[in-house]
């Protein structure tokens, strides 16, 4: 029984230590991710996603990147990366710190080899000096009968690959932290309103915090040249009704409070009215260009409003339309300036109090973000080491026949790039011969 389970774990280890498995997983992930861009996804295009066949919806094709099986693929890839990395650690450690000089000529790399002739003592001195100049770390052989060495440059480059692979695991951990401990939501509110954080619309996670957010002002700022500067929201955080923080945020300049970040996501103009129904005054706030309307109580009259292009700061105005029942065409429409009162179908009187900004804020708590940035740093650092800091390992052995004339055979480990490592060897040899002259 014990033997069996050992056999099984060995087998699993072998399966997961295969680079082919890793590449196959990557290929499948790429394919699945690509399919996800062709099928409408529920979180980006909810209406179209609902129109996709039921079977596909059940299989998760409309929320592909959140499905169990997509996460399973990422999980398998993580295991694969960890196993591969562990498998390689020993070898990398030895190739970096425990290099052994060749004891025999055959141990000098064959593919990239050059020979230098000369008297042994000056040859050794020249070689060591050139290696030192070029930044190599040299290890000399401790054997008494042969003089040999091994030298390495850019030795930390050996670690690039492992760091890169493990950074992916760090990224997945960061994403996991965010999806387990975080939340994501959105709210749109007009200036002057206060909304408890518990009541915002959530698309992911749950909110445990209890503070409220007050929108002090919302502004769409236009530069003198007509270009949009930015959208600005001045908001306050209220704990038990007391203001504890206040900040003006804008697109690309979020605001963070207790690990929860507020992002300016959208903006919309709107207007404040008072509807007077037989002396009963009802405050109305309507937002432009969305399904925001006012249905006067007890009537089937629907009031909508939109920004007036000729509105000015001195004399703000809006355009309005009144629809009756399910009618497609408005039964009353026109322009209303600030302070002006009109009669709506004899049912109520409408006064424009002024314009008001609506701010759309994305609210997010993601404790995994720091881990994600750590993963990014590792990923990039690993790649820079692997591709911009490639190690060069040169070894050689000096053989002399009568003590006067020696042959120094140098070889370089070519790794993945044969041609340029050969160039490095040629440079080394030409520097040595220059020294000897």
């Amino acid at each position, binding site marked *: 029984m014990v033997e069996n389970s050992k056999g099984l774990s060995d087998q699993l280890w072998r399966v997961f230590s295969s680079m082919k498995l890793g590449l196959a997983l990557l290929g499948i992930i790429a394919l699945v991710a690509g399919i996800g861009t062709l099928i409408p996804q529920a979180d980006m295009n909810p209406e179209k996603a609902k129109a996709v066949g039921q079977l596909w919806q059940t299989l998760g094709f409309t929320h592909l990147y959140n499905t169990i099986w997509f996460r399973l693929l990422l999980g398998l890839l993580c295991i694969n990366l960890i196993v591969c990395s562990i498998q390689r650690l020993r070898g990398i450690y030895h190739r970096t710190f425990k290099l052994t000089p060749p004891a025999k000529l055959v141990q000098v790399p064959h593919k990239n080899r050059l020979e230098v002739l000369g008297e042994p003592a000056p040859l050794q001195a020249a070689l060591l000096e050139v290696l030192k100049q070029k930044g190599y770390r040299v290890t000399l052989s401790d054997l008494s009968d042969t003089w040999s060495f091994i030298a390495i440059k850019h030795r930390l480059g050996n670690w690039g690959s492992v760091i890169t692979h493990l950074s992916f695991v760090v990224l997945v951990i960061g994403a996991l932290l965010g999806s387990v401990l975080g939340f994501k939501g959105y709210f749109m509110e007009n200036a002057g309103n206060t909304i408890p954080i518990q009541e915002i619309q959530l698309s992911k996670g749950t909110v445990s915090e209890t503070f409220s957010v007050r929108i002090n002002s919302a502004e769409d700022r236009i530069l003198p040249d007509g270009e949009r500067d930015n959208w600005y929201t001045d908001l306050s955080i209220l704990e038990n009704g007391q203001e504890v923080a206040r900040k003006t945020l804008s697109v*690309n300049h979020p605001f963070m409070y207790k690990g929860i*970040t507020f992002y300016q996501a959208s903006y919309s103009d709107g207007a404040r009215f008072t509807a007077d129904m037989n002396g009963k005054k009802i405050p109305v706030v309507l937002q432009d260009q969305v399904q925001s309307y006012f249905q006067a109580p007890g009537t089937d009259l629907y009031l909508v409003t939109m920004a007036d292009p000729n509105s000015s700061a001195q004399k703000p105005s809006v355009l309005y339309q009144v629809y009756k029942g399910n009618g497609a065409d408005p039964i009353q429409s026109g322009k209303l300036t600030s302070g002006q009162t009109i009669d709506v179908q004899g049912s109520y009187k409408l006064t424009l109090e002024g314009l008001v900004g609506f701010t759309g804020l994305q609210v997010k708590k993601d404790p995994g973000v720091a881990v994600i940035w750590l993963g990014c740093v590792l990923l990039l650092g690993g790649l820079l080491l692997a591709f911009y800091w490639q190690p060069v390992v040169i070894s050689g052995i000096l053989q002399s026949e009568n003590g006067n004339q020696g042959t120094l055979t140098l070889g370089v480990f070519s790794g993945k790039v044969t041609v*340029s490592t050969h160039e490095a060897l040629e440079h080394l040899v030409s520097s040595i011969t220059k020294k000897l002259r």
Partner: protein
Amino acid sequence: MLENLETALFYILLMTCTLCMLFYWIWLGTKKELVGRLATYLTILAVLVNTAAIILRMITSGHPPLSNGYEFLLTFCLGIMAVYLFAEFRYKLRSLGAFVMPIPCLLLMFIIMSMGPEERIAQAVPPALKSQWLTFHVITAMFAYGAFAVSFGLGIMYLLKASQEDNQNKLSPQGIVARFPSLEILDELAYKVVGFAFPLLTLCIITGAIWANYAWGTYWSWDPKETWSLITWIIYAGYLHARLMYGWKGRRAAWLAVFGFAAVLFTFFGVNYFLPGLHSYA
């Protein structure tokens, strides 16, 4: 005034690009040193004109060249030609020009054919694009995509040469392809170029994620543009591993370099024209 100069520069760039492509082709056929030199000089000229056009655009619009497809295509062309020129000087590989230069040429033609003047003018940038991270995002994309275009050219050369070597007996050894560098050199060079570009593509995706986190509150939202840049990344990751795997060095790796660039183009064009998403600028 400056705008007119910029338009003039664009047409000069298009002409220079077309000419140097033709000269590279003629050189490939005739091996006349004068023609080859002319092709190289014209490429240098094209790089200068392209740089000038981008700088002028930045002066007139007051922001980095990223507000629309036209601006990014100009940057993309500059990236391709700059990386190519470096490769030509560093590795003395002029025949590569015949396979790389058609790419900026086609991109510029694409601008003429599919983008009206109103699509080319400098546009105001929406608040979301006002971020320093974007400058890095575009610079890294420029060099990464440029280098991938060069590796695409090398991949095509490899495949041509490899298929000719298979049919060695039927073809005369004096053909154009026979004068290409050896398969080993082409393969290794493509690997180096991808190795140069891969960390840059990674940095491009990371700077994009940092910016998205500032602007939208999510570092990764599986937007089609993001997803396709990840797919491109995976294809090149596959390429880099391919040579470690028995039997995948050489021809299959060359195909991956070709597919990788197809994915680069799809990330740019396909996503903008076929798939909707957040990243609708360039």
